């Protein structure tokens, strides 16, 4: 992860912020999207988030996670349980992280 690579990444991400937040605001005339594109807009953020987190959760060292003694899996279970119980994102983060740290620092997983 060289500095130049990260800086280029950050500059591009800044452009992404400006472009997405100004997408229909920057053109002078009011534009709108065809209905099909609006449907796709509903699924793209979900698909992108899942695409990033699924391998982070399920893959260790380039292979499918092979042991149940994996602190991250239990952290995800705890976070998921909290979310579907209370629907709060803050508790989801705190609960999952607490389980993660307890298993890693307490049990040495």
């Amino acid at each position, binding site marked *: *992860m060289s*500095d130049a690579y*990260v*800086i280029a*990444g*950050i500059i*591009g*991400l*800044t*452009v*992404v*912020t*400006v*472009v*997405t*937040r*100004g*997408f*229909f*605001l*920057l053109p*002078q005339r*009011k534009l709108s*999207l065809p209905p099909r594109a609006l*449907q*796709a*807009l509903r*699924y*793209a*953020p*979900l*698909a*992108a*988030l*899942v*695409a*990033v*987190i*699924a*391998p*982070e959760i*399920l*893959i260790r060292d*380039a292979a499918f996670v092979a042991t149940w003694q994996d602190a*991250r899996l239990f*952290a*995800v279970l705890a*976070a*998921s349980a909290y*979310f579907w119980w209370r*629907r709060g*994102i*803050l508790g*989801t*983060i705190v609960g*999952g*992280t607490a389980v993660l*740290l307890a298993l*890693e*620092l307490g049990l040495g997983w």
Partner: protein
Amino acid sequence: MIPVRDPEFRRGFIEMMAPSLGMAAWALVTGVAMVKSGLSLPLATLMTMLVYAGSAQLAALPLLVAGAPLAVIWAAAFCVNLRFVIYSAHWHNYLGHLPRWQRMMLGYLAVDLNYVFFARRFPDLRPAPEQLPYLWGGIAWNWMSWQGASLLGIFIADRVPTEWDLGFAGVLALLGVTYSLLSDTRTWIAAGVAAGAAVAAFSLPLELNIVVAIAAGVGAGLLLERFLPSRAAERAP
């Protein structure tokens, strides 16, 4: 230029205080995750100051660590940010008459909470004089609380031992956002398809599994929109 003395500015500023607490916690996690992913303090600070988009930053981190091609990282961040594209069409009704640089500035600075509060306060889709100071007030508070909490997270993370896997808190944060997007059977299936594709295609070079998974998830969603009628979809969990 920013109307700080306007009573509407104060109103927008104060109204944002309570709801931004949750956002500040999110910023703290983002700050911690940036440093724990291996970004140096200056680069983490640069990222929060310029990018100013928590979900996109968190999604970009594992990809940066893996050395993914920048185009893949930007494409993933673009998809994560697509909700702003929808907001921007709405913003045009209120801000479309302003000079372009001002539209760009306001668009860049207006985050989810600004949109939600503004749309609730001004349901009529037309410009009014009290709108700009109100919006600037909310923007000012959100920017300061977000950046303050993010810098605090960066500072804390630098002092926490590396064995603490705190970077994973960023993944848990994204997990919560993902769950909040699962509203019916169709979104659940599309998410399942995207997850399966991301893992199954993991061995592809250049982190292309991300692109494959996004395409598979959106494709599945569009097929479901066509073939799974919405009433049947809504009856399910």
